[in-house]
C-alpha cells in the first residue's frame, strides 16, 4: 500500500468507526444499566434516518433534521421503556422476544409510511465536495462525521464522568440495588438512559443517512454491526463502545482493502480474536 492510500484508508476507518460508535454507545449503555439487549436498536437508527429525512425536506435544514429526529426518537424510547420494558427487568428471554418483535413492528410501520424504495438524505451544503490529501480525494463530509463523532464522545464522557447524573448512572451499572437502596429513583434514570440510547441512534441514522441511506432491512444490518462493536468493546462501558467501534471500523476498512473479497470475514475474525483473549470484551468488566 502506498502512503497516500494508507492515510486515506485510515481516515475511512476512523470516520466509519465513529459512525459505528454513535450506534453502539446507546445499545451498550442500555445493556449496561438495565441489562436489556435492545434488538430494536437498529430500528431506532433507521427510523431516525427516515424522520430526519422528512424534517430536512420540510425545513431545508440538516441541523433541524438531526436534532428533531433525535428528540422524536428519544420520546419513542421513553414511551417504549415506560409501557413495555419496565415490566420485563431480569426476564432476559422475554426482553429478547419483545425487542425483536418491536424491531419487526417498527420496520413494518416504516415500510408502510415510506415504502420499500431506498431513500437517501441530502448532505448539509457546507460539507459537500472533497479535498485532496496526498493526491487522493477524500470527502469533506467524512471529516464532518469524524468531528461530530468525537464531539459526541467527549460530551458523553463528560456527562458520565463529571455530572451527578453520570455518577448515578455509572453506579447503577455496577450495582442497581445499592443505588435504589440509597433512595435514588433509579427507574427515572432508566427512562433517561433509554431516551439517550434512542437519541444517539437517531443521530447516527441522520449522520449516516447521506452515505448509507435508509431502506427496509437496514435495521438488521445496523443491529449486527452494533452488536459486534458491543461484543468487542465490552458490554456496558462507554469507553468499550468507543474503542470497539474504532477497532471494528478499522478491521472492516483494512480488511476490505487488503482482502477485498473477504470483508465479511474480518469483522468476525476480529470478534473471535478479542473473545479468545478477553472473553468480556476489550474494556468489559470481568464477572465477579
Amino acid at each position, binding site marked *: 500500500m502506498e502512503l497516500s*492510500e494508507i492515510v*486515506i*484508508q485510515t481516515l*475511512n*476507518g476512523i*470516520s*466509519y468507526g465513529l459512525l459505528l460508535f454513535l450506534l453502539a454507545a446507546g445499545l451498550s449503555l442500555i445493556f449496561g444499566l438495565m441489562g436489556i439487549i435492545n434488538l430494536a436498536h437498529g430500528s431506532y437508527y433507521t427510523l431516525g434516518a427516515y424522520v430526519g429525512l422528512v424534517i430536512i425536506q420540510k425545513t431545508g435544514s440538516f441541523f433541524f433534521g438531526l436534532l428533531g429526529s433525535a428528540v422524536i426518537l428519544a420520546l419513542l424510547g421513553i414511551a417504549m421503556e415506560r409501557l413495555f420494558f419496565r415490566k420485563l427487568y431480569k426476564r432476559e428471554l422475554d426482553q429478547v422476544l419483545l425487542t425483536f418483535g418491536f424491531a419487526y413492528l417498527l420496520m413494518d410501520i416504516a*415500510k408502510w409510511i415510506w*415504502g*420499500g*424504495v*431506498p*431513500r*437517501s438524505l*441530502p448532505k448539509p451544503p457546507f460539507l459537500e465536495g*472533497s479535498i485532496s490529501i496526498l493526491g*487522493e*480525494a*477524500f*470527502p469533506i*463530509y*467524512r471529516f464532518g462525521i469524524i468531528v461530530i463523532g468525537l464531539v459526541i464522545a467527549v460530551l458523553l464522557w463528560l456527562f458520565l464522568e463529571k455530572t451527578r447524573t453520570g455518577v448515578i448512572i455509572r453506579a447503577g451499572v455496577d450495582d442497581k440495588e445499592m443505588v435504589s437502596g440509597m433512595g435514588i429513583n433509579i427507574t427515572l434514570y432508566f427512562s433517561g438512559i433509554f431516551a439517550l440510547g434512542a437519541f444517539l441512534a437517531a443521530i447516527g441514522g441522520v449522520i449516516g443517512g*447521506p*452515505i*448509507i*441511506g435508509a*431502506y*427496509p*432491512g*437496514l435495521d438488521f*444490518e*445496523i443491529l449486527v*454491526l452494533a452488536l459486534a462493536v458491543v461484543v468487542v468493546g465490552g458490554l456496558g462501558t462507554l469507553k468499550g463502545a468507543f474503542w470497539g467501534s474504532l477497532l471494528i471500523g478499522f478491521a*472492516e*476498512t*483494512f*480488511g*476490505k*482493502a487488503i482482502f*477485498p*473479497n473477504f*470483508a*465479511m470475514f474480518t469483522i468476525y475474525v476480529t470478534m473471535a480474536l478479542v473473545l479468545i483473549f478477553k472473553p468480556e470484551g476489550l474494556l468489559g468488566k470481568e464477572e465477579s
Partner: protein
Amino acid sequence: MRKKTYLARVSLLLLSIILIVSGIGCGSQVEKNSQEPIKVGLLVPYTGVFTSNGVDITRGVELYLNEVGGKAAGRDIKLVKEDSEMNGQVGLQKTRRLVESEKIQVLTGVVSSTVAYAIRDYVVENKVPFIIANAGACDLTREKASEYIFRVSFSNGQYEYPMGQYVYNKLKIRKVVVMAPDYAAGHEKADGFMAGFKAEGGQVVQEIYPKLGTTDYSPYLTQIKEADAVWVHFSAADSIKFVKQYDEYGLKKKLPLLSTGDLVDESSLLGQGDSAIGIISALHYSAALTNPENEKFVKDYTAKYAEGPNMFAEQGYVAAKVIVKGIEATGGKVTDTKQLLDSIRKVQFDAPRGPFKFDPKTQNVIFNTYIRKTEKINGKLVNTVIETIPDVSDRWMAGK
C-alpha cells in the same frame, strides 16, 4: 348447391351436439371448471431487502390484469399472492400451498434465484407452468431448463455481454475495473460483461467483489487502480450507497461509471440524485423508451401508483401478459398443460420494452438490449436510450 349447404349445416349441428354431449360425458368437471376462475400464483418477497422488487412486480402484474378486466379467454383470473420472504425453504413451502391448497394453474414471480432453484424441482414434478418474472440465474434456463419453466426477465449476463462489446467498440475503452456483489448473480453478471469485453480485446485490470449489502464502499473506492473506466453491478439499496460514495470520493470525474441497468433503476435514481448523471448502463428496459406500448404503460402505471415504473414493474406486466395470451391461445382450457405450455412458448407481442418472444429452445426471453445514459431532463433523472442492440438471446452469451 342448396342441398350441399343444408348437408353442411346439419353435419355442423350434429358435430356440435356430439361435442357438447361428449363434453358433458367427460364429466361435469370441464363445464364446472369454466365457471371457476383460473388461479395464478404470484410468489415474490413482501418482506426483507428486496421487498420493493416484489411490490413493483406485483403492481405490474395487477396493472395488466386490470387492463384485460381480470379475464383471459372469457374466464376470470384470480391472483393468489404469497410472500417468499427471500428464503428458499419458505418459498418452497408457499409454492406447495399455492399448488396443493389453492390449486393454481400457473405460477409466476420469484425475485431471487435461490428461491427459484429451491422450488424448481417441485414445480417441474407437479407440472406447473412457471413464468419467472425476475430471477436471473443462468442455469434456470440452461442446465436446469424444463419445458415447464419460462423466463420473461433475463438470464444473468444476457444484456451484460453485448454491453461488454459496446464498451470496447463504441466507447473505445480498453481497460476496466469490475465490481459486483459477492453472490451468484453478481458473479454471473460480471462474467457476462467480462466475456463480451474480453472477446473484443478488452482488458480487466481489477476485479472486486464486496459482500452483498455492504454499508461502506470507501475502502474499495480508495483502492481502484488505473483504468479507463469502472464497470459495476449493484442493485436496490446498494446501488444508492455505491453511486453516492463513488461521487463522494471524486471518482466520477476521473473514471466513467458503466453498469448494469439495475444500478440506475428508476426507483434508485431519486435517492442517487445528481450523482447518477452520466452513468452508462445496459438493460432490456428503460422507462424513457418512446414506443407506443411503453408510453401507455408509463402513463397508466403512473396514474395508478403515483410513481413511474421500473424494470421490475415491466417484468411483472410482461409476465401477466404472457400468461393471459397463453391462456387465450388455448381457448381457456388451462387443464391441458401440454397445450398451455405450447401456447405460452409461441406467445409474441410488443411489450413496453419492445418486441417480446421466447427462445423456443431454452424458453428464455429474447429482447432488445438498450444502452442508456442517465441524464437530467427538465429537472428529472431519466435513462435516455443511446443505442439499441436488437434480438439479444442468452445463447449469444453462451456461445450460441
